[in-house]
């Protein structure tokens, strides 16, 4: 369910949108649409309706499209994939308000076209300086340091906080989803494959459907953990 709360700030209107995912009853982190361009509630509703393509998703299409755009920009090694995703969606909403409609292409395809332009502009403007691991290594930052949880002999408190956050985020999930996420990613190699096959049979779904479901749950868990770890 989406609610809009337009506010004015020194002549520049920004729109803070509170987006709540209806699935699983778990509130993701707040999504802010900050841009210079004025996006009022009507324009945003129009944009959501266009994105929904006639089927009211309660804001799910917006959240899903934003997720895909963030991943797109991230894979392009852009510095700020979230900002670029928001920029893309802003431009589309603005275009929709100016023109009244966007025809000849599906909403998803149009989002990709605009995203591609935004990416090319970011490269031109020097915002695509994704740091390579080699550059980081030269700066004395090792790969393991980048990826591990706080080392045992370093910050036990940070590690403890992460585990607490993980546990807290897990409890926010419905019990069935907790079981799925714990079971799906447990084990190694062949054991994991067999376990997943058994799960799919027990739940009466295909492997593909189970995979997507587990991904969605993990994605929400990751977002929750990141937010919690940052102290929000």
């Amino acid at each position: 369910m989406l609610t809009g709360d337009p506010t004015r700030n020194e002549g520049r209107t920004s729109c803070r949108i509170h987006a709540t995912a209806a699935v699983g009853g778990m509130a993701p982190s707040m999504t802010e649409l900050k841009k210079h361009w004025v996006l009022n509630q009507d324009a945003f509703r129009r944009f959501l309706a266009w994105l929904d393509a006639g089927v009211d998703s309660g804001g799910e299409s917006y959240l899903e499209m934003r997720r895909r755009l963030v991943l797109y920009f991230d894979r392009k090694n852009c510095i700020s994939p979230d900002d670029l995703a928001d920029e893309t969606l802003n431009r589309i909403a603005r275009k929709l308000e100016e023109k009244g409609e966007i025809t000849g292409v599906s909403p998803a395809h149009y989002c990709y076209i605009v995203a591609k332009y935004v990416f090319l502009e970011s490269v031109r403007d020097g915002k695509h300086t994704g740091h390579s691991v080699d550059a980081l290594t030269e700066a004395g930052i090792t790969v393991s340091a980048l990826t591990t949880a706080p080392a045992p002999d370093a910050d036990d408190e940070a590690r403890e906080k992460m585990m607490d956050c993980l546990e807290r985020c897990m409890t926010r999930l419905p019990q069935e989803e907790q079981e799925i996420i714990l079971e799906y990613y447990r084990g190694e190699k062949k054991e994991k494959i067999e376990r997943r096959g058994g799960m799919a049979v027990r739940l009466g779904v295909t492997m593909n459907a189970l995979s997507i479901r587990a991904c969605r749950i993990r994605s929400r868990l990751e977002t929750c953990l990141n937010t919690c770890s940052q102290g929000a």
Partner: protein
Amino acid sequence: MFTNDNPGVNSEFLVRYLLGDLPQEEAERMDEQSVTDEEFAWRVTAVENDLVDAYVRGELAGPQLALFESHYLASPNRRQKVSFARAILKSEGKLRPAGAKAGAVSPAALAASVSAKRSIWSMFTRPALRLQWGFAGAALAMTLVAGTLLFEVNHLRNQVTGMESERAALDKRQQETEKQLGEQRAVNSQTQSELERLRKTQGASDIVESIAVLLMPQTRGAGQPVAISVPGGAAGIPARLELESDDYGEYQVTLKDPATDHGLWHSARLKVAAKGKNRLLSISLPASLLKQQTYILEVSGISSKGAASLIDSYVFRVVRD
């Protein structure tokens, strides 16, 4: 080399995409699809999650490991993903579903119990392919067996009906034959009785023509030999032999014992007496030679040069009073 087991996904291709190992054109195609196709986007995420898990478990090696560390880890977001995976790995076994107490059943058992009731109904509503195919196969097999049995039963029933019809026809034929035989025996018996009576009142030679036993050639026999009654005190037994053809001027009849093939009696040379269409030879068998057994009468044609040629044979049985 790491491969993902997700069905319907070219996992190796997606891993290369995630590691930045695809040609630019292919990578752009994947980029587009990952934005425009929701299901594909989730599949890529699923492969990515498994790739990250494999990395934190130390399952990557060689070029894949090198690419992962040089390309994949270049992004802060992706490094955060790896940190999350490490946290999950470290918490494995320690985290339990909410509400579960220490020492409670494993998540696998919980998932099984949660799905237990659903799975019973899902046998009839969900595509439990193996069960459905099993039932379908069993039903098909039973149908085939039932069909085969029905066919066999019908076939056997038809055979039985046919055999019963044949037996009925045979029975009918046998009855008719026995009836004919019985009638002939009755006629012969009457003839013998009449002959006996006349013998007492008239000369024997006057009777022969009128009450002689008619014998047919063996080729036209009814199967059972004709029975000739020999009353006690009879001197001769008259008989008439019907010939198939009359090709000779004279004939001779020989009485034989079939057991020994010995000739017991020869007639004089006889001529055919025509009676309507029938060609008949009349003889009188000496009663003293006839015992209660079967005999054969052989008719030979006598040529102009005196040579004898066997023409027909006649079988009869003697019944003595």
